[in-house]
């Protein structure tokens, strides 16, 4: 039975690609209105988990419910309430920003596409390059356009894969501030995969730590930092990524 306020409920999720187990018996829930981070090194299974949640990838076994709907059978009932952004999944490069947003506005069945594109463009400060081909934009501009596309339908559940990857600190900070504002304004639920520990400490109420396809720890950033006896989430991340238990590093240091 899912918790009553769970927007996402994942139960014993497994994904195998031939001999490789990318996601190994993962279970978690994401509470409504929260921001949750999937953390882990490269190949930990974060992007695979997000792809399954979005319905792009079928799991080998396990169950995924979003807004109470079984994503394996009825994902189209809820896809209109979700959206997704990733620097690794492109928008067509030859289309202008306005054309791309217009196409996706129609795909999401928005009532007034032009008005919504204008509003999102104003919010994300992309109006000056609405008529430019998407492929000609800088990385920071592309990230904002991808976010604009992800916010077109004002999703109740926003999935983000490394939302500030390859951005300069100023643009990264701007994106984080925007996400905070969006969540407070709409009450949306956010699930993000990230390698940026500062970002996770700032944005997230809850953290799921993944390693080799498994969730190896979970809790709030403060809770994890306290439990591992560290000063930052980055130190906790390194402990988990290197499979060190609490105190191992202290002993290593003392031995040297």
């Amino acid at each position, binding site marked *: 039975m899912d918790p009553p306020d769970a927007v996402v409920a994942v139960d014993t999720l497994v994904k195998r690609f031939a001999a490789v187990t990318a996601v190994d018996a993962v279970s978690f829930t994401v509470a409504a209105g929260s921001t949750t981070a999937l953390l882990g090194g490269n190949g930990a299974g974060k992007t695979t988990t997000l792809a399954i949640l979005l319905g792009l990838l079928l799991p080998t076994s396990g169950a995924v419910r979003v807004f109470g709907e079984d994503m394996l059978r009825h994902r189209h009932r809820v896809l209109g309430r979700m959206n997704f952004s990733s620097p690794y999944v492109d928008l067509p490069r030859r289309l202008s920003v306005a054309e791309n947003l217009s196409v996706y506005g129609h795909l999401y069945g928005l009532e007034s596409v032009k008005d919504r594109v204008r509003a999102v463009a104003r919010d994300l400060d992309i109006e000056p390059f609405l008529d430019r081909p998407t492929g000609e934009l800088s990385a920071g501009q592309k990230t904002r356009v991808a976010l604009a596309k992800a916010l077109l*339908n004002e999703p109740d559940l926003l999935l983000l894969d490394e939302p500030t990857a390859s951005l300069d600190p100023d643009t990264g900070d701007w994106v984080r501030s925007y996400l905070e504002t969006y969540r407070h304004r709409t009450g949306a639920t956010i699930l993000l995969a990230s390698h940026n520990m500062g970002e996770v400490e700032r944005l997230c109420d809850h953290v799921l730590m993944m390693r080799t396809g498994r969730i190896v720890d979970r809790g709030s950033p403060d809770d994890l930092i306290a439990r591992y006896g560290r000063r930052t989430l980055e130190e906790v991340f390194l402990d988990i990524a290197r499979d060190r238990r609490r105190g191992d590093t202290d002993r290593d240091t003392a031995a040297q």
Partner: protein
Amino acid sequence: MSAHAGARGGALFSWRRIGAVILRHTYVLRSSWPRLLELAYWPTVQMILWGFITTFFLGHSSWVAQAAGVLISAVLLWDVLFRANLGVSLTFMEEMWARNLGQMFVSPLRPYEMVAALTLMSLIRTAISVSPAALLALPLYDVWVFSLGPPLVAFFANLLVFGWSIGLVVSALVLRFGLGAESLAWVAIFAVAPLSGIYYPIDTLPGWLQPVAWSLPSAHVFEGMRSVLFDDVFRLDLLAGAVALNAAYLALASGFFLYTFHVARRRGLLLQQGE
């Protein structure tokens, strides 16, 4: 709850979503005049080439002299089939080249709506491709292909649908095996060319090959075309054969595409396209 009440997408079938995919590809065509030119270029070159061949044959072949437009009509109708196939497969591969399939299928777009959009986009591209050649045939060779009348609509529709079937199978194979298989879009169609009786009657083929030819809708169409041009008879039996075969092939090709899409979701191929 989202403030945008329209943003749900639970409907089983949405013309709006299909229109969105067509809009996306219309933007691509509109933004590049070389692409538009390329669409019309080859059918026009083919028509001009075969027009001269026809002019030559008229003085040397009593068969061609009986119906002066037979070769040009055959060339134009063959291009309908060829372009209909490309209209589906190139439109689909455009999404793969743009690495856009992942974005599209996290929206409420359904795979069968994508199939519908691909076929409608193929209709648009085919019309753009063959119309200039069909119109130019009149001033250049005094051949007005539209003089075929209502049968032309039947021929066009059947070749279009057969092209869709081949294009859907090619698209499915490209989705499954990646863009390394993209040349199939250009070469697969030529496997049916010798058996379609484009430029010669089916009874020219060896006896054992003729049943194979008759299993193709295109053979019924080109025989039907010759019947109209040589004998001024529109054979309904050939039309019925083409329609029945097309219905079966389109259902099988759509099913194959949707099955391959399911396999792609299982293997994670929607996120791993590109070169």
